[in-house]
């Protein structure tokens, strides 16, 4: 079974530029998550999708971050404009449903460096 795919793996940009990350979840997984992991910390949830609808985006800085999952499969996360503090690894995860005990499977992440 193929895992969660993410691209690019690395991205370096200057502050105030924009950037986009792509995620393809495990086939058949209805729920998709984007996490931000700052160096030395645990991942923090940014947004959760159930199919193509947003379930939770309470932690997403909506003035600069946006995400979509138009067809309920793959998803993109965008930052515009980027700030220095956005430097982090952006992880995508998926699960079959969104139940309490449903395992979330993570992709390898995109490491973003903002200069």
């Amino acid at each position, binding site marked *: 079974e193929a895992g*969660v795919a993410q691209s690019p793996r690395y991205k370096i940009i200057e502050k105030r530029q924009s950037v986009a990350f792509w995620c393809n979840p495990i086939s058949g997984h209805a729920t998709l*998550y984007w996490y931000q992991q700052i160096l030395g910390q645990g991942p923090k949830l940014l947004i959760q999708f159930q199919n193509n609808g947003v379930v939770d985006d309470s932690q997403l800085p909506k003035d600069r971050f946006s995400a979509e999952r138009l067809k309920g499969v793959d998803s993109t996360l965008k930052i515009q404009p980027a700030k220095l503090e956005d430097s982090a690894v952006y992880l995508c995860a998926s699960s079959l449903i*969104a139940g*309490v005990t449903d395992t979330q499977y993570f992709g390898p992440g995109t490491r973003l460096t903002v200069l």
Partner: protein
Amino acid sequence: GESVGLHLPTLSVQEGDNSIINCAYSNSASDYFIWYKQESGKGPQFIIDIRSNMDKRQGQRVTVLLNKTVKHLSLQIAATQPGDSAVYFCAENKGGKLIFGQGTELSVKP
């Protein structure tokens, strides 16, 4: 703020010894916890989980213990191997939303 935390940021053990990684949580209503392993350059990988109606759960070389009285859980790794070197996170699942602690980095000395 975060509701889960870890006691130590780093742990170094000799190959073949047992490892114990600890985690404290603050929400007494939490009923489901997960341990993840994250190797360098990779995403977190599920290791084992436990529900609050259990005190102990065993997997392959790993055991999770839950003490609800003191709101503490631990991950025990038997016969630690070099491949176990990674950062270990405990996470609390709140209605499908994972809340991670900061992680403990486990180093295995040959």
